[in-house]
């Protein structure tokens, strides 16, 4: 067998790998940081942290929650933290309909940092000195830890009613 035929064989093997890759569902984290939790509840203990652009493997779906695997750990994440091209879809790869293209776009734009981004904000700040970004930064630093939120709820006799949404 000459090397040209070997190359052809490799190309077809690639086809096999591609098909396999498609069978695995992965989602991309679209928020700055998020927790992967022991259960499908907001106040369940954290098993791992994930950050923007992390790729997670989807194991299971339950309502608005996904069971995912990340860096060897398994746990639950809310669907609002990940890209929409995820879950339960087995779209044919050659379906270049607008919906599929739009979903591909979100990830690519995010990955490339090409949309309204820090670069645009930095440029904007230079042009408009009257804006109060210091106050915005101060606002963003106020993050009440989840255990404190849970304690506040308990102290106020607030019994959460978690349901599928």
């Amino acid at each position, binding site marked *: 067998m000459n090397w040209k035929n070997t190359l052809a064989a490799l190309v*077809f093997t690639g086809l096999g790998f591609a098909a396999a*890759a498609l069978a695995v569902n992965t989602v991309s984290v679209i928020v700055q940081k998020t927790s992967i939790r022991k259960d499908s509840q907001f106040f369940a203990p954290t098993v791992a942290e994930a950050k923007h652009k992390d790729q997670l493997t989807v194991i299971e779906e339950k309502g608005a929650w996904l069971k995912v695997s990340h860096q060897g750990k398994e746990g639950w994440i809310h669907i*609002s933290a990940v890209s929409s091209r995820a879950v339960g879809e087995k779209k044919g790869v050659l379906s270049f309909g607008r919906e599929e293209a739009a979903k591909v*776009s979100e990830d690519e734009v995010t990955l490339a940092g090409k949309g*309204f981004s820090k670069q645009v904000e930095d440029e904007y700040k230079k042009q408009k000195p*009257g804006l109060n*970004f210091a106050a915005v930064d101060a606002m963003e630093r106020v993050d009440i830890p989840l255990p404190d939120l849970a304690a506040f*709820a308990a102290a106020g006799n607030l019994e959460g009613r978690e349901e599928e949404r």
Partner: protein
Amino acid sequence: MRRALFLIAVCAAAASLLLSAPAGGIDLGTFNKVLQHSDAIIKSGKALRKGFTELTAEEEYYIGRSVAARLLGNFKPSPDSGRNTYINTVGQLLAAYSSRPETFGGYHFQLIESDEINAFAAPGGLILITTGLYRSLENEEQLAAVLAHEVSHVVLKHGLSAIKSSRLTEAFTIIGTEVAQERSPAEVAQLTSVFDGTLDDIVNKLVVSGYSRGQEEEADREALRILYKAGYNPQGLLEFLKVLMEGEEKGKGKGFYSTHPPTEKRLKKAEGSLKDEKLFSETDSVRTSRFAAHKL
């Protein structure tokens, strides 16, 4: 996913070339053509984005930051850290029960000094409440109702919906669909100019024209559900709307009243939603006492 698409495209192109290849297999020159051909397949599949719903979570965040920075350039943030912590605790708890508990930068709340009764929800979750509004509240259920309502505007992307479609088309055209390359200074300047216009559209909605009545009612419905799921008594929203109605007579045309539709209709709709969805719950006096400790 893009890698998988690329592999499939490579193989599809390879298969089509192999079928037409001379006996003896393919050579490297042809393989190069395969790669270019497959890239073209992917390019032709990409469409420019169109509506505000296609803005990414990260873009929503940067838009929201600048909207808030504009507002905070005009309204002084209250230095009252005790009450700010309190409203952040109630607000972040409520956001956890919404249908979009996670945004790029999360939900954050800030008291701003103004006698007007008003609140502003910047896209992405930066929410401002005037001291005038806070002073009008009678208990924690009503505070939760106001915060749940503002969170709902963020969840439902009502702020983003204000962006003119022509503005979005311009932005999406400049941003394009290509990945990897750095933007030229000219492109950055263009995009920043469109960004400015985007902020104009949103700030105008928040401060001048207000949301539509449909959007207010939608936010009220979502707020009632959030309150119920969090364990609050959704009646708090109805109570707050009644407080507003009393203020409406006194403060016609100013602040809140110029940017919100007549409260009586909102109240009737909200009462209807509460009954239809059976969102009945009790107010616990523990919460009323805790609010009293934070009363302005």
